């Protein structure tokens, strides 16, 4: 059951990554990266159970924290230095 | 299963070459630093791949576990990551100073400005 969960989360991560590649706006990329980070936390938690050593959940906690701080940093940055064209960054 | 046995190494080589390509092809100093980071991470991944043992788990002793992966590469890479961010920040600081004195971070423009400065007194 953890196998199925891990694979499903990997699929979600792949789709989020595709959105991060295609954009088209800066905010789409931020959204995709944020989603990627959340799914990484879930993946790490499920993977710990898959390998039968779930005590390494600290890593998942760190991911959750860092992901939040990273997204806030990116948003503050976008506010302070607005991108030349807000609608597309290609 | 020759391919799968070496898949990790080949991905490492691809990443290393991608970082190398960015480093020599890119004109923007910040992108060069990101290329250097990719190159660096590929080396990390090579070390960690070498340390993995089939059937082993993380090298933190627990009851009922016989095989552990090799802890030595982990130690080397752990400190290398922190040193990596320290050197990256030094490089970024240099880039900021270059931007302040040349007003550009494009390599070719910096070289042109240098050339003008060198030839300046004669002209």
């Amino acid at each position: 059951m953890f196998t199925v969960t891990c694979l499903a989360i990997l699929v979600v991560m792949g789709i989020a990554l595709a959105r991060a590649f295609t954009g088209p706006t800066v905010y789409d990329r931020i959204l995709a990266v944020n989603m990627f980070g959340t799914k990484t936390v879930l993946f790490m938690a499920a993977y710990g159970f898959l390998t039968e050593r779930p005590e390494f959940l600290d890593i998942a906690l760190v991911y959750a924290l860092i992901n939040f701080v990273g997204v806030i940093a990116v948003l503050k940055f976008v506010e302070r230095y607005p991108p030349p064209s807000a609608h597309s960054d290609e | 299963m020759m391919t799968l046995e070496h898949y990790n190494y080949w991905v490492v080589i691809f990443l290393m070459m991608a970082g190398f390509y960015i480093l020599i092809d890119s004109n923007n100093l910040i992108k060069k630093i990101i290329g250097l980071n990719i190159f660096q991470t590929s080396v990390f991944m090579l070390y960690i791949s070498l340390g993995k043992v089939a059937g082993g788990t993380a090298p933190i002793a627990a009851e009922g576990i016989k095989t552990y992966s090799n802890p030595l590469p982990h130690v080397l890479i752990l400190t290398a990551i922190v040193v990596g961010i320290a050197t990256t920040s030094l490089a970024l600081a240099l880039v900021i100073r270059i931007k302040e004195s040349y007003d550009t971070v494009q390599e070719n423009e910096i070289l042109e400005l240098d050339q003008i400065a060198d030839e300046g007194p004669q002209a």
Partner: protein
Amino acid sequence: MTFIIDALSWVFLMLGCFLGISGAVGIFQFKEFYSRVHAASVTDTLCVFFIMAGLVLQSGFTLVTVKLVLAVALLWFTSPVASHALIHAAYLTGLKPKLTTTRKEAAKRGQS
């Protein structure tokens, strides 16, 4: 007893996976930024809850459970705040939502 717990975790994990995948399809398929945020942020919280609940059922009552609960709490606090900040920043810097009309409304407007 173990059978019931296993069955429950299966149900929870699969529900979580379903929500996660629907969110991913949402951010990939929707045409416009604000609907994509909607798809991602709404499914996210419940997906986290279901997957972590499925894992908690398997872990029993140990330190692992506490860490899982902490992770859920952390994600529940941070994820909506991040979505809020994202939309706020997007709106402030001039990305306006596209307001589309349905075919019926357009037809009505055409008649009047």
